[in-house]
């Protein structure tokens, strides 16, 4: 069951780096993160890697494995042949800090810009009543573990640094969709979705849905319905007129 695998791991920092080759033991049932940890404890004590739960629940150990955005803790070694070289590189969309660790602060900046959740008042008895079927739509997006693999794979920002200022990425488009579908929320964020978070940049190639480790249907259930709602508002003549009238200065 135990064999020696060849691993190529990118090592370096913002100034540059390269792939280094290691021969490392692999045991039955292990995942890529186990092997990275073995490298750390036996061959490269200062190999930088983010991880926490090691159970696919926290979304910390994102990397590109043989070029595909994956969670290292959920990628089993048995998916590779014993003779196959496994190449692990940092997320390409974000600037490298060191080795497999990237600077993901872009995501935290976008999160902070989204107008906060604002609930309707509670009912007279102090509770909120919602039907299961109504909460489930937003619950799908709240499964998101913020691994940012969707952000990594999205071609709008993957090789287009210039788009980051105007595009929030799939993670935050589904956050907007989640709030839009939230049974208690009372804020309309459709203008912001289009104008501030770049909803229009998404041309629904569904790459984000393909890499999501939680199986969230980002495009079909989140982004497309949000686009439709924006269109409803923008191109419905009555809504358009109404919005102009309401926006007239009151003085």
């Amino acid at each position, binding site marked *: 069951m135990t064999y020696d695998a060849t691993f190529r791991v990118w090592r370096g*920092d913002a100034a540059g780096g390269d792939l280094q080759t290691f021969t490392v033991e692999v*045991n*039955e*049932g*292990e*995942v890529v993160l*186990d092997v990275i940890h073995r490298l*750390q*404890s*036996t061959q490269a*004590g*200062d*190999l*930088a*890697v*983010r*991880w*926490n*739960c*090691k*159970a*696919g*629940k*926290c*979304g*910390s150990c994102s990397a590109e494995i043989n070029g595909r955005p994956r969670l290292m803790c*959920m990628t*089993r070694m048995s998916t590779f042949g014993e003779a196959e070289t496994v190449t692990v590189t940092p997320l390409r969309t974000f600037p490298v*800090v*060191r*080795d497999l*660790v990237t*600077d*993901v602060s872009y995501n*935290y900046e976008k*999160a*902070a810009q989204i107008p*906060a*959740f604002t*609930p309707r008042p*509670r009912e007279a008895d*102090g*509770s*909120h*009543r*919602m*039907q*299961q079927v109504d*909460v489930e739509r*937003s*619950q799908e997006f*709240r*499964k*998101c*573990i*913020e691994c940012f693999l969707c952000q990594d794979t999205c071609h709008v920002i993957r090789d287009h640094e210039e788009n980051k200022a105007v595009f929030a990425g799939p993670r935050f488009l589904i956050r907007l969709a989640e*709030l839009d579908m*939230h049974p*208690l*929320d009372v804020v309309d964020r459709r203008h912001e979705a289009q104008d501030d978070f770049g909803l229009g940049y998404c041309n629904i190639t569904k790459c984000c849905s393909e890499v999501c480790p939680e199986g969230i249907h980002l495009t079909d259930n989140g982004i497309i319905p949000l686009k439709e709602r924006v269109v409803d508002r923008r191109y419905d003549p009555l809504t358009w007129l109404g919005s102009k009238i309401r926006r007239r200065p009151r003085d």
Partner: protein
Amino acid sequence: MVELERHEYDVVVVGAGGAGLRAAIAAQESGARTAVVCKSLLGKAHTVMAEGGIAAAMANTYPEDNWRVHFRDTMRGGKMLNHWRMAQLHAQEAPDRVRELEDWGALFDRTPDGLISQRDFGGHRYARLAHVGDRTGLELIRTLQQRTVALGIDVYMECTVTRLLTGRGGGAGGDGADGVTGAFGYWRESGRFVAWSAPSVVLATGGIGKSYKVTSNSWEYTGDGHSLALQAGATLVNMEFVQFHPTGMVWPPSVRGILVTESVRGDGGILKNSAGNRFMFDYIPDFFRKETAETEDEADRWYEDKKNNRRPPELLPRDEVARAINSEVKAGRGTPHGGVYLDIASRRSPEYIRKRLPSMYHQFKELAEVDITAEAMEVGPTCHYVMGGVEVDPDTEAARVPGLFAAGEVAGGMHGSNRLGGNSLSDLLVFGRRAGLAAAEHARMHPVRTALPDDALADAARAALAPFEREGGENPYTVQHDLQQTMHDLVGIIRTAPEMQQALDRIAALKERVANLSVEGHRQYNPGWHLALDLPHMLVVSECIARAALERQESRGGHTRDDFPATDAEWARTNLICSRAPDGSVALTRQPLPQMPAELAEVFEEVPA
């Protein structure tokens, strides 16, 4: 003069799990300038691993439920060693803490009439856990994270606190005692130092599980807060009580210890040994006999009719179930990989299982190639939670050092000798909020800020850099591995005096090895260096556990002595307190348990078993 970044706040919260974020929200909302410092990225804290739910007597499914029943369940689950006042506040305030999460965007599963749905869990008389499938912890952390961001609280991500700073002034007490003046740490990303000046510090650093070989805890759980509190002059209580969750994964080896939620049993799953017997019926202790089903038929009827039937023994408190599994395996009735079978496949439909337990389904499918809707899981005990922690005032979470507060897993007293499932998420909401309010109030009462003395900062910086100065020393990963093996083998589920004595000898030897560690590389995002700085915390906490466990000559809750298998009336009235002796070692003292007032003691008469 040491090169470092300096900041000034009213309240600094160490840790960004549920307790830390709830404390920061409370402090910021009451007007204090608040910062959160956390070792990982925001939203990655160990709270996300909580699966089952938040225990709160909201009575949405059972109108008979109320705080008195929850209080009683909690005290009995902790074998009456809990601080009664904490258990009372917890049971009374948990429903409001859950409701307010909805005002911040949380979406719990619903009952047919639209209220928050509540599920069954071990040791709880009624279905009481507010939940979102089996990912409740993620919902809680995301809700608090989004609230934290909405309030504009400053968050220092991937930043580790290595020392608390104390002195006169600042948060000092009225009697002239030293109080908290701030904290010192480093950015993990750059290795640069940072100091926060603040009269109030809230510790919310979680637990200690990384000192054990088989654990559900992540790398962060190195007992930092326990150790920082001790060093600052505070005390720890109940450190001998470590919870081994009965159901961790056992196969394959690389996932050994990963949590399998108690909801599997709450939703109908049963435990079987290799002979196919539902063995928990053989392990019902007298203490819980009156409230536990005697036959499989009665146990199965209970899921539908709780009035006329008693709880299945699979839903006894965790300490009882973990010991039973341990005994079955030792008696040779375990599975091929040294666990027992947890079977829900033969009892519930695949649709039900996938709906109620989606992340368990996913976890077993992906990591073990097991389809839990078709076959049984193999499970065994895993180190999950420490009941012991910083000794605090129940109402304010203030430690014995003025200006220092602690909430969540790092605080002690609330859970006594064993925590009930679901009581952790409610604990961190109730006491996180209280700690944040009290910390803000303390800061208001101490408006004069003291400058952090240069010599203390320089000393902290020197200590942090020491592993780089030494050449040819040992690798920190090897020392951590040896500590984990020691605690697993000698201070685990079943304990004896000679083994714990041996553990203490080994810990003493490990301390010498830690003093001579060296690390390779430089200060930028260097995990070897980070581990070298975490190891002293892990050692001091391990020593507290071993010393207290050796001293308590009885078995109770999460502490089982092979050489003293019974509970003891004298120990039922006694807490063990750890403090730091002048020579830096751990000192142990006995302290009488706080006396429960008569009107609360009546609860145990009025609520039928």
